[in-house]
């Protein structure tokens, strides 16, 4: 890590203004900018409360829109790298010929300010599968175009468990730098060349930290670390081994029977990356190939053309979710496919609780060895 600098709130506003003026897209946590019913007060929009407040990651045009504090955006940063629907190419019939139109595979630079460390760390984990047997150009191009500053987290609630999966409330995994909120602004550290280049380019906005700020930042981070450790914890290696060796355990049935297969957990998850590819005719003689988010919890996810479905019930599908994230992916890529953000727990409306499940598995694993 390089020297710690300080970015006051005023300078942050100026920085964002500079970036926007230079046509650089700025993304960060903001109040959900969604549509409003005309004639109704803003607070009474009555959007389904769901499990979250009203934050979302989105493009912002000024620092006023940024909410760099407590609160977890509804969806993760995933949509900015693997959009929920993305064109891969399109075609146009011209007489008897067909013209294929490629999509751009390069993007203008953009900045994420204030990503939750769990959301940011997820990107590096997914990088591995995106560069495994096929180099995913679109994912990689968006990653290359984006400078990311994470924001030290104060721990959202009792469902967070980042420290159990190798992340932390102040983790800089996959980040180019870290903001930590202190009085009047943010401490800023950079951890990569890209981060350093960004700060150098806007050096006038950054100053030396005022007296006491560094200590306050360190205290905040230490408190957050202690707080998340109080939630619950489990050992990922023990979980990995138990899951690998208990494919037919009756435990899976108790989980699968409650699950609706709605897939909300996979949609809000920062590390879930499964997608479907469809070729669709979209007009007369024209169409495109697109990829869209898919969910292993859907009944048709593993349906074969023959009619056979190897994961034909929800028990098998729910088991798959835990298996993939905590056994298969670590075996293949050396990392757990989870950053402990807790969104799946908060969003599940039937009360499935991955924390509860992992702690239970860890206990079974420990009993096995006794």
């Amino acid at each position: 890590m390089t020297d710690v600098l300080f970015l006051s709130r005023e300078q942050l506003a100026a920085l964002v203004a500079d970036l926007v003026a230079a046509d650089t897209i700025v993304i960060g946590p903001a109040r959900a900018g969604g549509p409003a019913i005309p004639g109704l007060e803003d607070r009474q929009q009555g959007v389904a409360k769901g499990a979250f407040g009203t934050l979302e990651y989105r493009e912002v045009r000024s620092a006023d829109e940024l909410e760099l504090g407590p609160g977890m955006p509804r969806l993760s940063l995933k949509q900015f790298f693997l959009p929920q629907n993305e064109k891969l190419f399109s075609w146009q019939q011209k007489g008897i010929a067909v013209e294929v139109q490629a999509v751009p595979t390069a993007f203008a630079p953009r900045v994420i300010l204030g990503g939750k460390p769990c959301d940011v760390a997820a990107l590096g984990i997914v990088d591995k599968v995106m560069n495994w047997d096929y180099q995913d150009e679109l994912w990689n191009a968006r990653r290359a175009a984006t400078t990311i500053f994470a924001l030290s987290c104060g721990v959202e609630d009792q469902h967070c468990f980042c420290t159990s999966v190798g992340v932390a409330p102040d983790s800089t995994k996959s980040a180019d730098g870290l903001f930590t909120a202190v009085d009047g602004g943010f401490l800023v550290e950079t951890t990569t060349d890209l981060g350093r280049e960004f700060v150098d380019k806007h050096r006038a906005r950054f100053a030396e930290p005022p007296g006491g700020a560094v200590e306050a930042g360190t205290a905040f981070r230490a408190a957050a670390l202690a707080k998340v450790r109080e939630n619950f914890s489990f050992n990922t290696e023990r979980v990995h081994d138990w899951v690998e060796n208990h494919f037919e355990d009756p435990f899976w049935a108790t989980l699968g029977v409650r699950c609706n297969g709605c897939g909300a957990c996979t949609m809000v998850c920062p590390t879930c990356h499964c997608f479907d590819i469809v070729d669709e005719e979209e007009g007369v003689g024209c169409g495109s190939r697109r990829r869209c988010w898919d969910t292993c919890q859907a009944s048709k996810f593993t349906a074969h053309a023959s009619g056979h479905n190897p994961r034909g019930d929800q028990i098998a599908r729910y088991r798959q979710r835990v298996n993939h994230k905590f056994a298969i992916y670590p075996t293949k890529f050396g990392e757990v496919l989870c950053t402990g953000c807790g969104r799946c727990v908060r969003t599940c409306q039937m009360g499935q609780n991955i924390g509860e499940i992992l702690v239970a598995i860890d206990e079974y694993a420990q009993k096995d060895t006794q």
Partner: protein
Amino acid sequence: MSEEFEPRITAFVCNWCTYTGADLAGTSRLHMASNVRIIRLPCTGRIDPLFVIKAFERGADGVIVSGCHPADCHYTAGNYHARRRFALFHDLMAFIGVDAERITFSWVSASEGAKWRDVVNEAVANVRRVGPFTAYRELIDQSVSADHPLDDEVLAAAAASAPATSGDSKTGDGA
């Protein structure tokens, strides 16, 4: 626009009444707008709201749905079922904000060639007034990924003006 907008109207009509009525309009050499493409179905009871949605997706600016008068359905009750279905679809489309002028429902019998002409002319005039429904077709293009894709021209210009490149960004074909 120098050219006046010519609406594209798709008409879903039942074979026994409206299709025959439209034929009668033709053989009677009645003059009417030529913007309508007719899709013949056995009965209005066969018409699924998805047909109308598909028509808008594929380029229709307006849709006509027409069949036998109540009590005259060739299959006895098809149009009664359709009537309820159409009512729901009509009310829901209005609630979504689709201009009511774009979807026309009518009962046109086999002997009502003149009525078909009037329905067609009115529908075309209404849709011409509200304009092309490109807003619907373009719903396919909204992006949530907050990025600026760089097309080949921009990249080529950037490459030409910056001799010492980092070699990170790639050009070329997609997928």
